[in-house]
């Protein structure tokens, strides 16, 4: 997977570079370095074809070409900001730097002389020529080529080099950021899959061994079968919350909220009944009808599933009858003069500490009070739910109160009736 992505990134990097070369008409390179790994300077053939005569002459000699590349790498590696740099042999380059996650990206190039700064260029060239003990004829030829190099006026630097390099650099950095998010999602999903499939394999192996042994079906075999079923359910959560959520584009339409909430409740009613937990629903109607809300139905449906499932799975089963309940209530509630609908999910069971009220919405986070049978998730359900609520311009919050034998936990979801025009 990584190789496929690396090839794709390389192709995109080269395309960006060629575009920058077209914009500026100058030879450019892009340097990418990942923390802890050596950096890599990319120069495309198109870019090389724009090199100044001075550079071309230098590159004819393998030793001098290696010196040029080492100098480029060294300057890109140490560059931390954008600006002009004088190369080891006397030409100016412009650099633009970006930090994207653990990657440092430097666009470098535009071999040029700066008008009024010819003396600095020639002084640097002389240092180089002395250091290399260049024969007189070669020295004269290189100096001639240096003096013939493109000259840019300082005041033209902005539109000739700075602006195009910045624009292309921003574009490339944005692409890397998107790719980083994509890679992170793929890595998380792959890890979740690996763990869940491993778990299924372990349980299936146990059940097979037990079934192969002589004798009647025992209690532990039923438990193993039930474990298998629960783990398949969790694997389904990974698929629905991660993969489908990532791949399907949301489509907003007016839909009544009632059936969406009831659909989620029905999906978990039997699981709740197994724990002796009942689910009570009270959704306020508007003119005898469940209100219509503009929503991406499949997304919101999955978010409601996650919230109901959460309430059921973190409910204690050993409580007094009055507390073995999950309550789902809906109320019309305007917020900041926007008409909307609030849905609350209450349960008695595992609590959420005050300092975790934000953390539990982070990807992969699982509450610190969750343990053993009350820790059966992948830590992605609430993350996905919040993403969906935010996608709907809504709000989600959680509160938890210690009631002695259990915590009363309430998630409040608020959704506006209408979406902004650009969302449709």
């Amino acid at each position, binding site marked *: 997977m990584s190789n496929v992505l690396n090839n794709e990134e390389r192709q995109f990097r080269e395309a960006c570079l060629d575009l920058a070369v077209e914009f500026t008409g100058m030879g450019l390179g892009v340097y990418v370095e990942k923390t802890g790994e050596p950096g890599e300077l990319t120069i495309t053939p198109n870019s090389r074809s724009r090199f100044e005569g001075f550079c071309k002459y230098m590159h004819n000699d393998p030793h001098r070409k290696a010196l040029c590349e080492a100098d480029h790498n060294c300057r890109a590696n140490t560059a931390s900001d954008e600006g002009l740099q004088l190369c080891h042999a006397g030409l100016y380059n412009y650099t633009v730097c970006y930090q994207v996650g653990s990657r440092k990206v430097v666009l470098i190039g535009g071999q040029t002389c700066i008008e009024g700064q010819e003396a600095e260029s020639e002084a640097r060239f002389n240092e180089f020529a002395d250091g290399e003990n260049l024969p007189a004829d070669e020295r004269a030829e290189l100096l001639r080529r240096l003096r013939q190099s493109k000259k840019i006026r300082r005041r033209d630097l902005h539109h000739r080099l700075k602006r195009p390099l910045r624009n292309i650099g921003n574009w490339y950095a944005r692409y890397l950021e998107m790719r980083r998010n994509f890679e992170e999602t793929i890595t998380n999903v792959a890890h979740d899959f*690996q*763990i*869940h499939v491993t778990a299924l*394999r*372990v*349980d299936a*192996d146990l059940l097979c061994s037990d079934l192969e042994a002589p004798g009647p079906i025992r209690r532990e075999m039923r438990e193993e079968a039930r474990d298998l079923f629960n783990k398949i359910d*969790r694997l389904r959560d990974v698929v629905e919350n991660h993969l489908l959520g990532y791949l399907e584009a949301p489509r907003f339409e007016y839909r009544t909220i009632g059936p969406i909430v009831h659909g989620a409740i029905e999906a978990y009613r039997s699981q709740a009944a197994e724990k002796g937990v009942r689910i009570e629903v009270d959704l306020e109607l508007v003119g005898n009808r469940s209100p219509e809300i503009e929503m991406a139905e499949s997304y919101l449906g999955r978010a409601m599933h996650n919230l109901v499932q959460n309430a059921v799975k973190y409910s204690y089963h050993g409580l007094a009858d009055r507390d073995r309940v999950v309550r789902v209530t809906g109320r019309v509630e305007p917020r900041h003069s926007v008409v909307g609908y609030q849905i609350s999910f209450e349960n008695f069971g595992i609590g959420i500490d005050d300092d975790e009220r934000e953390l539990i919405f982070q990807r992969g986070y699982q509450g610190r009070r969750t343990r053993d049978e009350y820790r059966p998730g992948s830590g992605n359900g609430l993350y996905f739910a919040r993403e969906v609520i935010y996608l709907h311009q809504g709000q989600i919050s959680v509160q938890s109160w210690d009631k002695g034998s259990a915590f009363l936990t309430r998630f409040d979801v608020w959704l506006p009736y209408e979406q902004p025009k650009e969302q449709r």
Partner: protein
Amino acid sequence: MRHIVWLDDDYDTIGSLVRLLQRDGHRVLRLRTVGEALDHVTDILSCDLLILDVLLPPGKAVMENDDHYRGRTLLRTFREEWGFNRPVIVCSIVAKKELDAELEALGVASILRKTETTASRLKREADRIWRERAEIPERT
């Protein structure tokens, strides 16, 4: 009966791995973070077998020179600073030769790949280790 400590944040998902050991009457203490491990040092130092994942969340612990393989770092601390001499099975999804070599140098008795391990395999490994380490007797 023997006391086993299992240090792994995935144990909720792959908890069934220790089921056969539990059926044999062994007691399993499950810990999921470095912080929890540090809260249970006495249990770890006196256990009959430590099953460890190298990938561990820090929990509330603040580790010096924090790295990707916190389980390996924690084991090194147990071995080098606290004189921990009990047998260790590493059960992890990570498959890296250099890491395996480091773990072997830390006296790990067996390295199992989670994706290939079954409850019976884990039990066989534990039984083999206890057989070879006669100084770890059954507890009553």
